């Protein structure tokens, strides 16, 4: 392995040049891998808040075109006026059985928390108490609604308004729509397809019906049981409800999730590709250094060739140099990219709990492999040129 030894010694004798070349690769690998880690961590963070509702199908009144209105009424109208009738809910319920169909009412309302406080505006959901367990609303304090005037509040709403279990909320500008007593605080859920409860109130359906004199629904959430396909449930509802005219819009949360993941994947690839530009620059630098190395050693190559060194052996010597730069630079870059990924995730996402994942390991692996491949690719032409020098011309070179 004399050529391996010569390659090592040549890099050592040009330590500064070799280190700078490696630094380029280190930067390139860090750029690619840390961007990959950031993208993966973003996906993981979003996934955590979305995956819990990945088994839902959301049915809402169709707001586009001139379809039948809610309750069999005609005309399109604005989406704010569109509702689902109890009859339509029952149709949906029968179509999706044995999956659970949950009717949901909602409105935006002014309210006061405590005496003398300013009016605030928040969403109030009306859900029958029997369906609360199906919605998977976990509580951080208190209990589920007991009685007609009890309610649950989202964690952000509770925090912002200093609400505790037992607090009372006056609904309406002057409390004309009654008072709700907080019986429980819902754990933070993040972004959700079904109920966005973090900044909202969940009251009972009876209270909602009585307060707003409602006998229709804003949406129906179908919780699809394990082992059943959300896409099939969606199709079943569409077939049942949109036979003649399009009455309802049906959203499959799993398909939406897949679409979101695909979008994040594209963003991650794009960001990593931008990081790849620095790798290309590093590759050009390696190419330049290898060409310099060849031009400085033309005489040496001539001597080697004249005393019986084959072309492939000369080539291997320069490939070894590129490989050493590539492997050391890429491995160091891989290690640093984990640290960079840690720092970026902590700063941008506020958490580092998604750092040690298979996807991140793959991102680092890809960055390292890309660095090595770039180095080898950029070393091939100079090595080929060295191997194909005319021995006589090379020997005469000064």
């Amino acid at each position: 392995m004399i050529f391996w030894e010569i390659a090592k010694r040549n890099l050592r004798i040009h330590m500064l040049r070799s280190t700078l070349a490696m630094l380029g690769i280190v930067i390139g690998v860090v750029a690619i891998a840390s961007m990959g880690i950031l993208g993966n961590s973003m996906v993981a963070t979003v996934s955590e808040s979305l995956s819990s509702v990945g088994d839902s199908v959301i049915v809402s009144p169709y707001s586009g075109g001139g379809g039948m209105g809610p309750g069999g009424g005609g005309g399109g109208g604005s989406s704010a006026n569109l509702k689902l009738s109890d009859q339509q809910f029952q149709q949906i319920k029968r179509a999706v059985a044995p999956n659970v169909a949950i009717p949901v009412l909602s409105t935006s309302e002014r309210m006061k928390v405590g005496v003398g406080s300013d009016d605030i505006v928040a969403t109030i959901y009306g859900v029958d108490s029997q369906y609360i367990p199906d919605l998977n609303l976990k509580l951080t304090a208190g209990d589920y609604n007991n009685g007609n005037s009890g309610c649950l509040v989202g964690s952000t709403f509770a925090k912002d308004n200093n609400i505790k279990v037992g607090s009372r909320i006056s609904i309406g500008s002057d409390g004309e729509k009654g008072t709700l007593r907080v019986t429980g605080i819902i754990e933070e859920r993040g972004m959700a397809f079904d109920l966005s409860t973090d900044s909202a109130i969940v009251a009972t359906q009876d209270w909602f019906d009585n307060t707003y004199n409602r006998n229709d629904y804003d949406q129906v959430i179908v919780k699809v049981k394990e082992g059943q396909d959300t896409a099939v449930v969606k199709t079943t509802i569409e077939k049942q409800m949109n036979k003649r005219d399009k009455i309802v819009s049906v959203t499959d949360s799993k398909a939406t999730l897949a679409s979101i993941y695909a979008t994040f994947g594209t963003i991650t690839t794009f960001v990593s590709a931008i990081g790849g530009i620095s790798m290309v620059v590093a590759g050009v630098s390696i190419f330049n250094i290898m060409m310099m190395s060849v031009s400085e050693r033309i005489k040496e190559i001539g001597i080697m060739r004249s005393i019986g060194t084959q072309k492939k052996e000369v080539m291997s010597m320069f490939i070894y140099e590129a490989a050493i730069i590539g492997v050391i630079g890429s491995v160091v870059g891989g290690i640093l990219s984990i640290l960079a990924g840690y720092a970026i995730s902590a700063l941008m996402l506020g958490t580092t709990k998604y750092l040690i994942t298979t996807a991140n390991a793959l991102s680092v692996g890809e960055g390292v492999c890309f660095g090595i491949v770039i180095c080898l690719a950029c070393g091939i032409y100079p090595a080929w040129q060295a191997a194909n020098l005319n021995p006589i011309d090379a020997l005469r070179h000064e």
Partner: protein
Amino acid sequence: MGDIMQPAIQFEDVVKIYPLKSGDVMALNHISFEVQRGEFISIMGPSGSGKSTLLTLMGCLDKPTSGSISMSGVPIRDMSDIELTSLRRDRIGFIFQYFNLFPLLNVIENVSFPQMLKSGVNEARAREVLRAVQLDEKLYTHTPMELSGGQQQRVAVARALINDPDILLCDEPTGNLDSKTGASIMELMTELNKNGATIIVVTHDTTVANYTNRTIRIVDGCIAS
């Protein structure tokens, strides 16, 4: 490969033309000669006479434009680059005016280099040839930059001998040495020749030529005598 009864080198009607933009240059003009095994020959001639071209052809670094060159009876015309390189490695030893040692390798590694290309490291063999060229053992781990010109040329001779070649080709071996060191190198060559080595020395120094048994004079690409 080759027949030991055949001449070490045989040139038959060899022509070498370098095509240049300004017109073709005939470096060697229908040259024929033989070098028998065990001969010690000098090739002399003025600058531009074709000495270096003759050396590159004898060293299988180039092929003739026409005519035939045989090494131990084997013509080189149809040999591939790989075969010619192997021939140089196994059967020809080169000694250059400027020593041409590898600066990154120490003495032992420099001497072992052609052997490593052929069959791997045998440090005992490297030490044997270094003793044969009378290099102080303390210098074996030194790099070329730490040696004098005479010591470097002894290392170069040892490197040329390591694979036990049929022919030693020397290009002005004393050209970069003082007269005393040059004389000691030529005495070393004479000693090697007495032990059976075939040696061809390209020089324009008559003192060097005086060590050899035969001199081929080249003028304008032709053998003058």
